């Protein structure tokens, strides 16, 4: 292998497929490929959802004072960047996660780009974005080493805040609220859209479920047309556009410049956005795997690498940065299709669509209540996904405060945006981001609360009466570490059975010293005692049904012994029973 090859491998390791079990409710997971018609239809659905959320780029373009002509080019370049990053994410290369992860202009980076462009010029925003993209790509390989900084609870806080961040935009569009009251036609349009989407998602399966959002949108458009909220005016805007144009026509790419005061806030936002994409990586991994029990850090590192490439592209194109889409994540979960091929097709579709300005213009003319209904629907999904992650771990007061304060601090900014009105302008993009504040709070508290928590613990068990003490010890350790409740439960059952077996067979002298060690990947229990190694083999299989009709109590005792050994073997992922010089060790390892 050449030197360059080795260097490339060390910085960007090659793709490796993960073993997965398809969850119930999923039709196609990452490595599976639906038929072409289904792939195109679902990819089209993702492309449409993304195009609806291109509204964030439209908002940015208007805020930085672009003309209509420049705005068209600005939006088209955003779609190209999103399409390339989405395609790359779906590849099985060292620069893609191999998952259906859609990139789009995000509200997280929107505010920062506007603030920097208005203060320092678009060139400074572009330069900062380019630098941030390179740094994020460099950070991607460090992330596996930082797994203690980003445990499930932090990812869960992030997802909850992601969901909450969609609520305001969704609710305003849903209700047509404009400061002077609600708009009944908006509510009717949005409710129709949402009811159709939910109805199809809950009560149908197969293709109808796949196209729930598109069908819901169509129904919303019909109601909007009847109510006079969609029609000639909107279509005129579309037909005025040329049929074909190069994406960057109309928008002059800015010359990137490096301004320190501009770079710092954008860099911080991009790092936080990279943290956001870890949550996306965890979520898409969970969606694809019924046996998910920990973050696939090499995959997440590749996902972040691709995220960095997307940011770099956005900087080179002089547009607001792109990130991973929570709305499309919710769509993948809801539709049951998470095939990487669909992601690649969606990416290519977006690039092609960027050359067809009438298409993208039409999408952005979709009535806001319809967009609002989709945002409300996906907000719900993100909220629940975040709560599931948070509650998958054992909680104690430290973790409760870490999660609670993280969500609270993020929510303060959402509920009271005026609270930062006195902050320096250059800090407002950061302080005004619920995601940034909430996640940084949770991460900081996580690091602080880890102080004094050892990653292992030891208890001396003096007799079989120590079983209750053992359970309390494991419970306390599990809470300290934020271990997965299910795993600690299995460990508790297995070690309890081991103690009873040791006590019952009389091969040990008390005390037994139990050491428990934890990292994010496994929990290890080592039982060290004076005596013989434990034998977990089943002496003679006994049928429960036969035993029900048997009067022999000895058979009953043998069954219990068999069950004990069987439970230990089934619950632990690895069992080792060894001895040395009169001392024996039983080692139980549980994948975490």
């Amino acid at each position, binding site marked *: 292998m050449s030197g360059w090859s080795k260097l490339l491998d060390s910085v960007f390791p090659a793709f490796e497929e993960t073993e997965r079990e398809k969850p119930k409710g999923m039709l196609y997971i990452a490595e599976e490929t639906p038929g072409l018609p289904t792939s195109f239809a679902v990819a089209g659905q993702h492309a449409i959802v993304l195009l609806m959320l291109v509204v964030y780029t439209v908002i940015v373009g208007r805020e930085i004072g672009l003309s209509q002509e420049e705005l068209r080019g600005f939006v088209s370049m955003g779609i190209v960047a999103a399409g390339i990053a989405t395609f790359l994410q779906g590849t099985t290369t060292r620069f893609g996660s191999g998952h259906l992860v859609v990139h789009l202009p995000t509200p997280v980076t929107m505010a920062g780009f506007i603030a920097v462009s208005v203060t320092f010029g678009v060139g400074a925003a572009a330069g900062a974005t380019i630098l941030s993209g390179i740094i994020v790509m460099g950070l991607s390989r460090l992330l596996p080493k930082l797994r203690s900084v980003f445990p499930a609870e932090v990812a869960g806080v992030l997802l909850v805040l992601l969901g909450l961040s969609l609520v305001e935009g969704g609710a305003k569009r849903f209700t047509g609220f404009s400061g002077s009251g609600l708009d009944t036609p908006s509510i009717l349009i949005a409710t129709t859209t949402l009811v159709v989407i939910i109805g199809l998602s809950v009560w149908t399966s197969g293709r109808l479920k796949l196209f729930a959002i598109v069908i819901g949108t169509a129904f919303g458009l019909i109601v909007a047309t009847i109510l006079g909220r969609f029609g000639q005016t909107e279509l005129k805007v579309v037909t005025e556009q040329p049929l074909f144009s190069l994406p960057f026509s109309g928008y002059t790419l800015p010359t990137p410049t490096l301004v320190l005061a501009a770079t710092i806030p954008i860099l911080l936002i991009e790092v936080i956005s990279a943290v956001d994409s870890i949550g996306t990586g965890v979520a898409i991994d969970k969606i694809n795997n019924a046996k998910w029990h920990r973050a696939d850090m090499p995959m997440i590192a590749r996902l972040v690498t691709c995220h960095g490439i997307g940011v770099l592209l956005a900087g080179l194109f002089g547009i607001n940065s792109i990130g991973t889409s929570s709305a499309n994540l919710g769509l993948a979960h809801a539709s049951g299709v998470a095939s990487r091929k669909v992601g690649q097709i969606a990416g290519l579709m977006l690039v092609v669509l960027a050359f067809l300005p009438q298409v993208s213009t039409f999408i952005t003319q979709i009535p806001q209540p319809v967009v609002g209904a989709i945002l409300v629907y996906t907000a719900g999904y993100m909220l629940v996904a975040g709560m599931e992650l948070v509650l998958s771990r054992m909680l104690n007061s430290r973790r409760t405060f870490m999660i609670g304060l993280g969500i609270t601090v993020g929510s303060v900014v959402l509920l009271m945006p005026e609270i930062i009105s006195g902050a320096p302008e250059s800090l407002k993009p950061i302080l005004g981001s619920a995601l940034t504040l909430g996640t940084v709070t949770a991460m900081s508290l996580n690091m602080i609360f880890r102080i004094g928590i050892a990653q292992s613990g030891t208890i001396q068990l003096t007799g079989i*009466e120590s079983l209750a003490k053992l359970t309390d010890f494991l419970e306390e350790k599990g809470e300290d570490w934020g271990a997965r409740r299910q795993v600690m439960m299995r460990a*508790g059952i297995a070690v309890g*059975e081991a103690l009873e077996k040791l006590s019952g067979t009389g091969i040990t002298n008390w005390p037994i010293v139990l050491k428990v060690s934890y990292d994010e990947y496994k929990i290890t229990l080592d039982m060290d005692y004076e005596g013989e190694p434990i034998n977990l083999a089943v002496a003679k299989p006994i049928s*429960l*049904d036969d035993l029900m009709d048997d009067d022999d109590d000895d058979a009953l*005792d043998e069954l219990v012994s068999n*069950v*004990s050994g069987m439970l230990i073997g*089934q*619950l632990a992922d690895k069992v080792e029973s060894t001895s040395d010089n009169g001392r024996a060790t039983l080692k139980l390892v549980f994948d975490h």
Partner: protein
Amino acid sequence: MLIENRGDVVILAPRHRVDTNNSPEVEKVVFENIGDGEGKMVIDFSQVDYISSAGLRVLLKTAKQMKKGGGKLGLCNLNDQIKEVLELSGFLGIIDCYDSVDSCLAAFR
């Protein structure tokens, strides 16, 4: 352990744990109330955190006696740990389990 009679059904509610330390005691109480196994018994696990294979022995003996006597046995309010143990050991296939005492009593009628 709490003991309650509702009509012709005996409801037993062990507390905290059923393991090698207290399973003889639990067995004693169960068999004091089981008679010849002709009646109906519900074991309510709502107050139980943990069961071990020693506890399974008691359940199996109880189930055998009820089967012999033509009676009915139901377990209810199992937490995740107890369900996991019963499932892995195959006991869910030989003893009926219910979400609550009321659903168990309804099944007995």
